C-alpha cells in the first residue's frame, strides 16, 4: 500500500525530518486558499499513487504573477495514466544547494534491509544505479543485529558530505530507517532530499507499506486519512471499492473488453498471457489469493462485471487450497441474485471439482475443464458482441 506524498511527508515530519511548508487542497477553491497562506513561488503537486507524475504534467510551478487558480485546476484535472489526483499538495518552492537521495528498502536476495544513499537525487534511484553505479552506496542491515547509526554516517561520507552536512544527512537517514522499521514498510525514500544551509529537507516523500503487515499497524493507519475519489464512477472509485471488498489484486487496463478472475497468481498471469496471445484485450484483472470464501468469489464477480466496457467474464479456477465446491456456491449465489446479460465463461478444476461442477450444472452454468478452450471461448464471445 503506497501512501500519498503528503501523507508520507506528515509521517516524515513526526520523525524529525524537515519538509517544505505546504497545504493539501481537495478542491479548486482550497488550492487558491492554500496559495494565499503560502509564500511564492509555489509548487503544485498532484496526489496520485501512480508513478511518472512529473512527466505526465502532475507537477507545476506558480511564480508571483501566475494565476494559481488556473494552474491548480490543471493539476487537479490532469489524469496520471488512468488515475485522477485525489488532492493537490501546494508547497513553497525551496532553493537548495544540492539534491540528494536517501532511502531504505529490502534486499530480498541477501535477506536483509538496505540503506541506500546517493549524491544524485531527483532521479529514479534505479536509473542512477544503471547510469552511475559508482554514485549509489549501500549498507546492509543485519536482520538479527539491526541498524547502527555509524552505517548512516558511512553512507553520508561516501556520497561526499562533510562537516555539518554529514551529520545532518546521517540523522535524516537514521530517521528514515526508524520510519521504515516502525511502519513495517516495503520502501521509504526521500528523493530528492534537499541540502540547504540550514539542514536537510525532504522535497518528495515516498512510503510503501507492506500490505501483509498492516494488521499490526493500526496506530499508524488511524493517523492516515482516507481520501475519497473525485467522482463515484471512475477508476479511483472502483479501485478503492475493490479494496473494501477484500479483493487482493485488482488491476484495470485503459482499453479492453474482457474481465479475468483467477484464484492463483501464476494461473492468472497465464490466463492474461493466453488471452493476449489469442488477440483478446483484458479490461480488468482480479486475483483472489489463497483462502477464498464463496462470498469473496461473489464480490469479485460483482466488481469485475461492473467495470464499463466489459462484455465477457472469464473465471479461471484451478484450486489446491481453494475448494471448487465453495467457489461454485459463490458463482451460483452471485448469478441467482444478479442475472447477468454478460456471458460468463467458467473453467473449474482442482480440489473438490466434482462437487463444484455438480453445483454449476444444477444451476445451468456451463463450465470448461480445459483452459485453452475456455480462453478461446471467452475471446470469441467478446468479439461477437
Amino acid at each position: 500500500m503506497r501512501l500519498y506524498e503528503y501523507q508520507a511527508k506528515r509521517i516524515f515530519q513526526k520523525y524529525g525530518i524537515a519538509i517544505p511548508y505546504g497545504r493539501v487542497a481537495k478542491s479548486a477553491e482550497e488550492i487558491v486558499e492554500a496559495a494565499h497562506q503560502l509564500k511564492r513561488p509555489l509548487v503544485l503537486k498532484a496526489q496520485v499513487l501512480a508513478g511518472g507524475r512529473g512527466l505526465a504534467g502532475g507537477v507545476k510551478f506558480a511564480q508571483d504573477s501566475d494565476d494559481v487558480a488556473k494552474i491548480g485546476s490543471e493539476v487537479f484535472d490532469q489524469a496520471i495514466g488512468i488515475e485522477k489526483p485525489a488532492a493537490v499538495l501546494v508547497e513553497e518552492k525551496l532553493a537548495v544547494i544540492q539534491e540528494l537521495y536517501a532511502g531504505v528498502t529490502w534486499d530480498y536476495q541477501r535477506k536483509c534491509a538496505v540503506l541506500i544513499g546517493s549524491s544524485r537525487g531527483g532521479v529514479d534511484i534505479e536509473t542512477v544505479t544503471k547510469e552511475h553505479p559508482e554514485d549509489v552506496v549501500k549498507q546492509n542491515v543485519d536482520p538479527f543485529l539491526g541498524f547502527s547509526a555509524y552505517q548512516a554516517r558511512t553512507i553520508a561520507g561516501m556520497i561526499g558530505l562533510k562537516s555539518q552536512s554529514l551529520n545532518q544527512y546521517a540523522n535524516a537517514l537514521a530517521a528514515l530507517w526508524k520510519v521504515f522499521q516502525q511502519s513495517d514498510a516495503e520502501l521509504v525514500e526521500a528523493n530528492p532530499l534537499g541540502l540547504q544551509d540550514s539542514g536537510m529537507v525532504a522535497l518528495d516523500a515516498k512510503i510503501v507499506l507492506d500490505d501483509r503487515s498492516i494488521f499490526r499497524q493500526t496506530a499508524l493507519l488511524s493517523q492516515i486519512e482516507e481520501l475519497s475519489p473525485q467522482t463515484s464512477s471512475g477508476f479511483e472509485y472502483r479501485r478503492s471499492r475493490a479494496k473494501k471488498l477484500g479483493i487482493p489484486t485488482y488491476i484495470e487496463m485503459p482499453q479492453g473488453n474482457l474481465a479475468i478472475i483467477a484464484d492463483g497468481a501464476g494461473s492468472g498471469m497465464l490466463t492474461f498471457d493466453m488471452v493476449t496471445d489469442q488477440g483478446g484485450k483484458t479490461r480488468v484483472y482480479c486475483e483472489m489469493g489463497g483462502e477464498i470464501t464463496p462470498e469473496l468469489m461473489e464480490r469479485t464477480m460483482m466488481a469485475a462485471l461492473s467495470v464499463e466496457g466489459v462484455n465477457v467474464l472469464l473465471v479461471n479456477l484451478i484450486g489446491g487450497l481453494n475448494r471448487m465446491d465453495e467457489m461454485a456456491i459463490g458463482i451460483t449465489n452471485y448469478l441467482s441474485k444478479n442475472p447477468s446479460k454478460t456471458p460468463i465463461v467458467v473453467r473449474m478444476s482442482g480440489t473438490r471439482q466434482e462437487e463444484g461442477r455438480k453445483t454449476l450444472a444444477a444451476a445451468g452454468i456451463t463450465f470448461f475443464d480445459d483452459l485453452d478452450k475456455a480462453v478461446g471461448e471467452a475471446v470469441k464471445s467478446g468479439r461477437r458482441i
Partner: protein
Amino acid sequence: MAILVDRKTRVLVQGITGKIGSFQTQLMIEYGTDVVAGVTPGKGGQLIHGIPVFDSVQQAVKNTKPDVSICFVPGPYACDAAMEAIDAGLRLVVVLAEAVPLSDAVKMVAFASKHDAFLLGPDTAGAISPGKAKLGVHPHRLFIEGRIGIVSRSGALSYETAKVLTENGLGESTVVGIGGGPVWGFTHRDALRMFRDDPDTELVVLLGEIGGYVEEEAAEYLRNGYPKPVITLIVGKAAPPGQKMGHAGAIIQQGRGTAQDKIAALKQAGAIVANSPREIPLLIRKVM
C-alpha cells in the same frame, strides 16, 4: 527416490487443528503421506485424524521423530512457528501462509539459512511426489507419477502444467512450489541441484513469472552445464508494469524483472522455452 518428500518422510503438521490445517492433513494422509504428529499450542493431548497433537515442536520431535514440518499457521504467526521448527532441529519447513509480513519472511529465511535448514515458501503450495506422498495442498488428482521434475513459483501454474502432462500420459517425480515471493528460502536453483542428483528425474520443467531474481539465478546455475534437459515457461508477458499480479513478488519495476529478460537469460543458459503449458508435452517428446 524423488526429492524433498517420499513415502518414508515423517511429517509434522504445525497448525493441525485449524480448519484448513485439519482438512489438508486429512488429504495428505489419504494420499499416503506419513503424518506422525501435529502441533497446536494449548491443544496437546488431542488426536486429529488419529494423529497425536503436541503443544510444542520440541515435544513432537522427542516423541515422534519427524523429518520435516508443514506449517498451516496463519501469516502473522508463521515466522514464530517456522523458527520453532528450525530451532527444534527440523531441516525442512514448508510455510504455506500467504500473508507473511515482509520483515518476518526475511527473518525466517535468514534464520533457516543460519541453521542450514531449508525453508520452502512462504506463500507456497508445498511439494508433491506423485504416487508417493505430498507435503502440500496440491489437488493431487491432477498429478500422476513419472520422470519429470517440476519447480514453480506459483502453485496453480504447476497444477495447470501437471494437468496437461497427465492428459498426455506424462507424470512427475516431484513437483515443488517455491512460493509467491518476493522473499524465498528454497529457490529454483536448489530444486535444480536436487533434481540433478535424483535418478528418478529425467527432465526438469522450470516455471517462472515476472519480478524477483530466482529465474536469473537459475539461469546462472544452468550456464555452468546441466546434465538433464530443462524446459521453461515464464508467465506475465502481458502484465502491465508496476502492478503486483497477485503474488507480492510478481511485479515489473523500472523495467526490471520482465518475462522477456528471464526468457532470454534461461534460453541463453540452454533451457528450452515453451509459450504455454500445452507446448510443454510436445517439447518433452522431442527430447525424452
